[in-house]
């Protein structure tokens, strides 16, 4: 037990690492990047569905951290702050994608709690075999890309990244009630999308 306490003392928190980095210790920045590059890349990949774009956005997230780390005021957890940057960059990328594909911004980002289709789901998505090797993973990712991005973002943060509702509200800058309702609707949509796979694997008669 005393070992654990000693270990905890030796491992600096994210905020401490950031502070050290801001004092000029570049090594602390690399350590921070080491902690978060995989979860951030995974989150962005699941959100936008393209591995190369996700890598670019994840890298840009850390570039922003490098340049604007001094703007972190500690009002939220460091991880929440970092996810906020990644989520904003991902949303911007989706906007650019919609513009390139002829959907107007108004149509693409009509954000209303009652409006389930605030964005057009991506029907043309093809899973990236280099990330999702198994069929189940591919089908789940395909289903994720078919639900609207506002739901997708929150479902990923909740069910894959295991964030709390409060953290998701902070990352997405959305009311707590809206977060909960969107996660519920997103799960329902996702289960509907995965019904075929479920029936195929376990038979359609087992559950209604």
């Amino acid at each position, binding site marked *: 037990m005393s070992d654990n306490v000693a270990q905890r003392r030796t491992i600096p928190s994210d905020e401490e690492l950031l502070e050290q980095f801001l004092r000029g210790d570049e090594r602390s920045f690399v350590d921070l990047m080491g902690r978060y590059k995989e979860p951030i890349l995974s989150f962005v990949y699941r959100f936008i569905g393209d591995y190369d774009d996700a890598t670019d956005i*994840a890298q840009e997230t850390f570039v922003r951290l*490098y340049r604007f780390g001094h703007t972190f005021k500690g009002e939220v957890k460091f991880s929440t702050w970092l996810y906020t940057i990644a989520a904003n960059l991902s949303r911007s990328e989706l906007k650019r994608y919609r513009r390139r594909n002829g959907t107007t911004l108004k149509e693409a980002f009509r954000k209303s709690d009652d409006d389930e289709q605030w964005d057009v789901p991506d029907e043309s998505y093809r899973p990236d075999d280099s990330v999702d090797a198994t069929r189940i993973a591919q089908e789940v990712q395909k289903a994720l890309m078919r639900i609207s991005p506002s739901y997708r973002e929150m479902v990923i943060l909740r069910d894959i990244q295991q964030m709390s509702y409060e953290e998701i509200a902070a990352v997405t800058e959305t009311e707590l009630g809206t977060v909960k309702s969107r996660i519920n609707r997103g799960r329902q949509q996702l289960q509907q999308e995965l019904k075929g796979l479920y029936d195929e694997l376990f038979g359609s008669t087992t559950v209604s």
Partner: protein
Amino acid sequence: MNAVPTIPPGDDFDKQVLYRAWMQSLPSADVPADFDQTVLRRAAKGPLTHWWGLAIVAAFLAVIATITQLTDRPTPPVVSYVPASPLPSVDLYHLPPAPVVEETRYPDPQEVVPPRKRFGVAGY
């Protein structure tokens, strides 16, 4: 014996469990080997890119200003006929004689009275 009733699971209980299991078992995206290096390179390059952007904007503005100066000639003034207001005509050959005022009186030196000396209250 057991008075506590069992709680039946919802219809889609199995599906929800499976859905969550699938979501949580999704693999993490592999981070490229050069991820860190790329980030550090981009972070270091950032301000330079910023200056490049400013330089490009400045050059563009300079080109626009030059083109504007070259093409911006002063518009020639439009001369329009403005009729002069009629002046009173003067007959220079029949002018009336100008009055001449000349001092012909001889100056009288006695008229100049020297100022009287002033004395005290009783003195004259």
